[in-house]
């Protein structure tokens, strides 16, 4: 970043705050983009300053996915809204089997938000994007009045290219297929809850926020016929399985004992009256594949750092009700329903 004659006074990243002029479209916004966003997100397409990014993708099928990120708190153990906004969308792209190519980022800033915090978030976003090899190539910034936002919202959109011969979709689960998860459930949601003021419990648990596209690439290289992939984010594993069952018109049968849940997560859930199966993840995936490929798939996943704790947790069954059923760790059997309402801490 060279000094720009348009902006004789540099942004004050120590004590400054977002004000309405930063969203005006005028010089103050140009300065915010130049001295903050482009300082970290320094891909040539973004620096160019057009309202869109131009690139030549490899030929073939593409995917596009978008996700708004509205998390509170903005900074949490294991990440922040910036890294999350990168991982969250990369993962949605990757869940089609695609190799993610580029990201777009739309920021909605609340008047009064500290510029220093914004810089931390954007820097984290840049690190996450660099580490994943998926650059942010275009963006947008809006400012809303105080009381009409919540610090920062980031909506990211990703595009990617699907390798030939891969067809992964939520409607492809078939009776007999095997259901896998790539690791422990509930880490992200518990890490977030642990930072909510009034719940105030202490835990070492960190968000699992991570970009899963490389794990996915390894998986489809080994087992091209994966039927479904999905990241169990909001609503947790339970809701994701219900979504897949609904889309594919099948039932599912899982075993509680087989589902990896960290002891700390289990403990925090006991304390709050939550069920870890409904708690959000941001660096895990659910896979559905043909039975005869399952062992090979789980072994491949074990070979990747983000899949080291992968496990087969159940199978797809025929069921006109599209229920997800679970054999409990206690030996009983129950439905694992969609999340109803919000997952709220409870006293009874």
């Amino acid at each position, binding site marked *: 970043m060279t000094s720009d004659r348009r902006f004789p006074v540099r942004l004050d990243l120590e004590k400054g705050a977002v004000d309405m002029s930063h969203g005006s479209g005028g010089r103050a916004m140009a300065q915010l983009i130049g001295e903050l966003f482009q300082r970290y997100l320094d891909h040539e397409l973004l620096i160019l300053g057009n309202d869109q990014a131009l690139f030549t993708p490899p030929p073939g099928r593409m995917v596009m996915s978008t996700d708004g990120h509205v998390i509170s708190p903005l900074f949490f153990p294991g990440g922040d809204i910036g890294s999350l906004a990168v991982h969250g969308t990369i993962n949605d792209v990757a869940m089609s089997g695609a190799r993610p190519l580029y990201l777009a980022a739309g920021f909605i800033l609340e008047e009064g938000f500290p510029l220093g915090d914004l810089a931390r978030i954007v820097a984290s976003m840049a690190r996450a994007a660099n580490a994943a090899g998926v650059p942010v190539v275009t963006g947008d910034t809006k400012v809303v009045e105080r009381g009409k936002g919540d610090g920062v919202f980031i909506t990211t959109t990703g595009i990617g290219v699907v390798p030939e011969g891969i067809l992964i979709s939520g409607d492809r689960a078939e009776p007999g297929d095997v259901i896998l998860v790539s690791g422990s459930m509930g880490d992200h949601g518990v890490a977030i809850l642990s930072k909510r003021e009034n719940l105030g419990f202490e*835990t070492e648990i960190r968000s699992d926020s991570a970009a899963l596209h490389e794990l996915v690439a390894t998986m489809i290289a080994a087992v091209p016929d994966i039927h479904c992939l999905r990241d169990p984010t909001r609503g947790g594993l339970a809701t994701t399985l219900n979504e897949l069952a609904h889309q594919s018109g099948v039932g599912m049968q899982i075993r509680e004992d087989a589902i990896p849940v960290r002891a700390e997560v289990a403990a925090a859930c006991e304390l709050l009256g939550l069920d870890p199966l409904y708690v959000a993840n941001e660096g895990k995936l659910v896979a559905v594949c043909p039975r005869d490929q399952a062992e090979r798939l789980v072994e491949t996943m074990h070979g990747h750092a983000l899949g080291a704790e992968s496990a087969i947790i159940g199978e797809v069954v025929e069921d006109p009700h599209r229920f997800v059923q679970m054999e409990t760790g206690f030996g009983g059997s129950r439905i694992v329903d969609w999340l109803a309402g919000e997952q709220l801490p409870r006293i009874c």
Partner: protein
Amino acid sequence: MCLAIPARITSIDVAADTAKVALGSVGKEISLALIEDAAVGDYVLIHVGYALNKISEEEAQRTLEMIAEMGLLEEEQELDPEPTSTVAGSGGQR
């Protein structure tokens, strides 16, 4: 009703009448306003941020043994089954 969880006291703030408790590796601060004689190492039942009661290690052990015994079908059993306590009996603690 009344979600309550056993947790171990790891430290006590006498002045504030609060304690830190651990449930596995999860820590939490709770109020001791409802119990007396709590000591570090004690297990207490936690409900809405308050310790309701201490948990008796011996009684828990006894209950588990009883369950194990009860789980032996009659022909395997050596002892007569016996309720863990009755109101009239000597069971119960504090």
